[in-house]
């Protein structure tokens, strides 16, 4: 159950990474991003599929009970084809929608309730990271496109610096991706020791998949 709400988001036992990520996004949307009332009012079967890989999930909304399953279910009312990982990118493609427009718009708003700015996303992200004592701190974050910087953690010299475009930082802090994937793709870079990078990468992945510290 999303903390502080009556929204229950469940998954299968053997859930895929995409399903876990979607479930975690929904829980955070309901709990911390103010969408609980909207989720509670949703009814219907909604599927989300990536155009680039096999990531797909079906979400069953039933008045506060939300079930996320793998793949696109046959009984789905709406299919949205969109790259969830890239929805904040400036040149991202417009999603294709098949089925109920109303459900897709409302559910899409909840699911894509990413932070408007990376700083806003960071407000949820860093406390979750620092709940793990192994995650190094403080961390300096620099948006390379806007040249904005902010420091998170104690008021000391940073032991780690994250550098990347503001939209990729926002995606990371929202839970649409995780640090390891960004490092592999080269979208975000980190200046710091291998030990520090591993600890943050580990926690970032766990957070994206909805695991508690």
């Amino acid at each position: 159950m999303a903390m502080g709400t009556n929204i229950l988001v469940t998954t299968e036992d053997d859930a895929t990474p995409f399903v876990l990520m979607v479930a975690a996004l929904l829980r955070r949307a309901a709990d911390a991003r103010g969408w609980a009332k909207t989720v509670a009012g949703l009814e219907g079967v909604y599927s989300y599929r990536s155009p680039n890989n096999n990531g797909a999930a079906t979400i069953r909304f039933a008045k506060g009970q939300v079930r996320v399953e793998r793949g696109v279910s046959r009984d789905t009312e709406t299919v949205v084809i969109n790259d969830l990982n890239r929805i904040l990118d400036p040149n991202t493609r417009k999603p294709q929608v098949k089925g109920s427009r109303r459900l897709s718009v409302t559910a899409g708003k909840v699911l894509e309730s990413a932070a408007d700015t990376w700083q806003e996303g960071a407000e949820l992200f860093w406390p979750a990271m620092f709940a793990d004592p192994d995650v190094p701190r403080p961390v300096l974050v620099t948006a390379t496109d806007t040249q904005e910087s902010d420091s998170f953690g104690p008021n000391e010299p940073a032991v780690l610096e994250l550098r990347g475009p503001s939209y990729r930082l926002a995606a990371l802090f929202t839970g649409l991706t995780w640090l390891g994937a960004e490092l592999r793709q080269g979208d975000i870079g980190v200046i710091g020791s291998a030990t520090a990078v591993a600890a943050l990468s580990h926690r970032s992945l766990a957070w994206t998949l909805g695991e508690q510290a």
Partner: protein
Amino acid sequence: MTVPNRPASAPTDEQTTMEWLDQHAVHTVRTIGVHLDGTPVGHNLHRAAFEHALSLGPIMPAETLLTDVEGEPWLEAPRGWLETAGAPRQRPDLSSLTALGDGVARCMVDHVGADGTPIPICPRARLAALTETLEEHDVALQVHFTLEGVIHRESPAEARTKGHRGLTPVGTAGPSFRHDHQHRSVLTGLAHQLEAQDVAWQDWHSGSDAGQIRLVLAPAPPVRAADQAIAAREALRAAAATMSASMSFLATGPDAKVGNGTEITMHLGSQHQPTDSTTPHPKVMWWIGGLLATAPAASAITNPTVNAYRRVGRFAGAPAHCIWGRHNRSALLDIDSDHRSGISVTQLTHRGCSSDANPHLALAALIAGGLVGLVENLDPPAPSDATSWTQPVDHAPLPRTLVGARLALAEDKLLRPLLGAQLVETWLAARRHEWLHFHRSSERPEVGTITDWELKRYAELG
């Protein structure tokens, strides 16, 4: 059967090592360490370089030890130990020096830090440390591995070109002797290769799947037994190569009915065990109790890949239930006794290990489980003579997915202190890495057929 702890002529110190190298006219030494995923990693050292590095061995970059089977870093694996250990080195285990002929020798190594202390993710050193504690419990342990793999007529290059699909097995399915002639050329090469690799073996025979070969190694102390399993895999590959064929230790191939496993038989003895005993010694019972209690968590180690779980629960395949029995081949643990040598030795065969498992790490997990049983005096449930293959899924189940096994290991409190928290955390990160890549790289991997990704990644593993 008596197998010495080390080859009779193996050197023990620097002086005898020099003499041994002279005696065998060695010019090159292959150092072989064991990566967490079970693949051998090492150097081909000029003799002078080997002699120069006798005390600590050559450097083995930490990143080599923290990568997946295709060389991609385990970014999420903890690296805190590196700050105190420094750059890992491959410290030679001189007792393992083996002459391979043509001036080449093999030397197994442990991965150690700058001060000579084994690094926490060295499975060989962890196995050795656990084995040393057995004496405190008055337990004598010898182990033999039974390896399974499939031989195909295609060469490794041809198999790769075909994406490891549609290959032609050498021999048909079934254990009947009538198929053995089809293995004869491989057998001839295999016997030579095993001799060349100094691998002691007892038996080989056909398996249930087409082209499957089962090689039963000779009992040896745990570290040597696992070393021999690594060498035997190499010998099997080399034997197949002599007839331009290929050998795969893929747990579940595209045409597998049963799949490939690794049986680990533990020969447990105790000085104080009565020789006329017809029921297992209490320590054996506790050992079994510990193995069963830790089996779900150990499954993440004994079945390390998504591919390994495709064979779990198949009829006549890998055990899917946490049961033990006497002469029960379907059970996870199958017990037998041997009174021939005058002292009573219990043979306990673990059948829940896939062919792609790391022999050192899997055996370490089993010994850790046995030790848990000894320390906690864990009595096992009653033995079962029921076949596991027909039992319902929910009856004493073992994990059926890598995710389930990983979760069991993450929640485990029994194995972790014995295997080491750093090793367990690294392994958990590595297993999640495999699972993520499986889902990111394959098209609908959840559907029951084996994916191209699995074949590319695992067909040549082991």
